C-alpha cells in the first residue's frame, strides 16, 4: 500500500476556520505512507520540528512489484511517477481493468489504483514522486513529496535522478484507458436527473448540489435558512433512524434524492 497525502503542522480543526471563509488553506507538506522530510530552517512555527524521513522501498532487479496507490489528501491532486520506470495500471478503485502501460498516473482524492512495476532499470536509487498538481491547489513543499526506490538497500544516499515534470491537469486518467476486465454494459436506463453544483455564502461558504429542486414528492420543504442543496447532517437524527421512526419526509438539509428500482442515470455539472 502506498498512501499519498498532504500534511499541515496545524490540525484540520484549526484550518477549517480558514477554509470556511471560502479559500482553501495551503498545507505545508505532503506525505508518502505517512513519511517525508521538511525544511524547518526558515519556519517560525514552533510545531515545525524537522527530522523526518523519506518513505523507502527496496527493489530486487528483475522482480515485479504491485503497488496499491490511494490519494488520502484533504485537498491535493497527484501525478504519480517513478523515475526511470514505467508501469502497468491494472485496477481502479478495486475494479480490475485491461492493463495499460504508462509512466505517470493522475490520482484524484479518494481514488485508488493498482500498478505493477518491474525492477528493470539500472541498479541505483530512484525518486518515487507524488507529483503535486499546483494548478489544482497549493502546497508548501510541492516539489518535495517524494520517496526513494533502492536497488541496494544498504545505500543511504539520495537519488540524483530526474523525472516527470508535473503538468497542470486536475482531472482523471483518460476514460478510454479505464476498460474494466469484466465487461458490463449500462443498457437501458429509467430516468436521468441533473444536479447542478453551486455555492452559497451563508454563515460560511457553502457548496450546493441538488439545488435545482427536482425533488421527489416525499421531500419536506421546510423554512430554514439553509439553501436547498447543502447537506447538513444532524448527528442526533441520522437518515436511517428517521426511516426506523417512519419519518421519511426529508427536511431540505438532508438533501435526499429518493430512488426506486430502475436504472438511474445521474449527471452532475458545473455551470
Amino acid at each position: 500500500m502506498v498512501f499519498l497525502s498532504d500534511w499541515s503542522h496545524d490540525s484540520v480543526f484549526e484550518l477549517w476556520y480558514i477554509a470556511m471563509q471560502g479559500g482553501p488553506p495551503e498545507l505545508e507538506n505532503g506525505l508518502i505512507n505517512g513519511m517525508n522530510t521538511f525544511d524547518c530552517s526558515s519556519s517560525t512555527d514552533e510545531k515545525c520540528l524537522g527530522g523526518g524521513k523519506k518513505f523507502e522501498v527496496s527493489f530486487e532487479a528483475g522482480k515485479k512489484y504491485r503497488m496499491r496507490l490511494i490519494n488520502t489528501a484533504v485537498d491535493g491532486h497527484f501525478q504519480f511517477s517513478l523515475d526511470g520506470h514505467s508501469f502497468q495500471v491494472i485496477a481502479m478503485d478495486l475494479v480490475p481493468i485491461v492493463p495499460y502501460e504508462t509512466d505517470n498516473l493522475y490520482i484524484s482524492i479518494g481514488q485508488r489504483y493498482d500498478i505493477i512495476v518491474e525492477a528493470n532499470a539500472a541498479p541505483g536509487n530512484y525518486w518515487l514522486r507524488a507529483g503535486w498538481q499546483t494548478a489544482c491547489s497549493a502546497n508548501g513543499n510541492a516539489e518535495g513529496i517524494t520517496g526513494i526506490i533502492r536497488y541496494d538497500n544498504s545505500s543511504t544516499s539520495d537519488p540524483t535522478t530526474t523525472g516527470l515534470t508535473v503538468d497542470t491537469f486536475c482531472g482523471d486518467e483518460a476514460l478510454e484507458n479505464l476498460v474494466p476486465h469484466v465487461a458490463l454494459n449500462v443498457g437501458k436506463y429509467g430516468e436521468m436527473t441533473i444536479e447542478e453544483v453551486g455555492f452559497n455564502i451563508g454563515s460560511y461558504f457553502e457548496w450546493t448540489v441538488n439545488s435545482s429542486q427536482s425533488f421527489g414528492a416525499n421531500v419536506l420543504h421546510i423554512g430554514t435558512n439553509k439553501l436547498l442543496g447543502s447537506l447538513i447532517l444532524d448527528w442526533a437524527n441520522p437518515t436511517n433512524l428517521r426511516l426506523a421512526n417512519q419519518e421519511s419526509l426529508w427536511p431540505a438539509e438532508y438533501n435526499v434524492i429518493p430512488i426506486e428500482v430502475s436504472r438511474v442515470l445521474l449527471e452532475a455539472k458545473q455551470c
Partner: protein
Amino acid sequence: MLIIPRITHPIHMHGHDFWVIGQAAAKFDASTTVLNLTNPPRRDTASLPGNGYLAIAFQIDNPGSWIMHCHIAWHASQGFALQFVESEDEILSTFAEDTTFQDTCSAWNAYIPIQAYEQDDSGI
C-alpha cells in the same frame, strides 16, 4: 465580489460502484452529448471537471442511504453532498435490528450537553 474558480471536484459515492458514462470540460446537452454505455469505467470516485460535467449511472440493487460527496474535505465540510435513499421500503430489513439506532442516538443526546465542541460544519 467573490470569484469562485470552476475547479475540478472528485465525486465519491458510497454503496455503489458507478459507471462513468461521460466526463468533459464542456457544456452538457442531454440531446447531443454522446454517452458511452458500452463497458464504461466502473469505480466509486470520478472527477467533475471545472466548467464541465460528469455523467454517471448505477443500478438500483443495494437498498440503503448512500451519500455522494466531493472528496475535497473542505468541500464536504461545506455541504457539497447529497444522499440517495435507495429502495426505502427495503432498507430497514437489511438491518438485524433497529435498537442500535435508538441506543446510539440516546447516548449521543446524553453526551451533547457536556461536550466541549459544537458541530461547526456539515458534519460529514
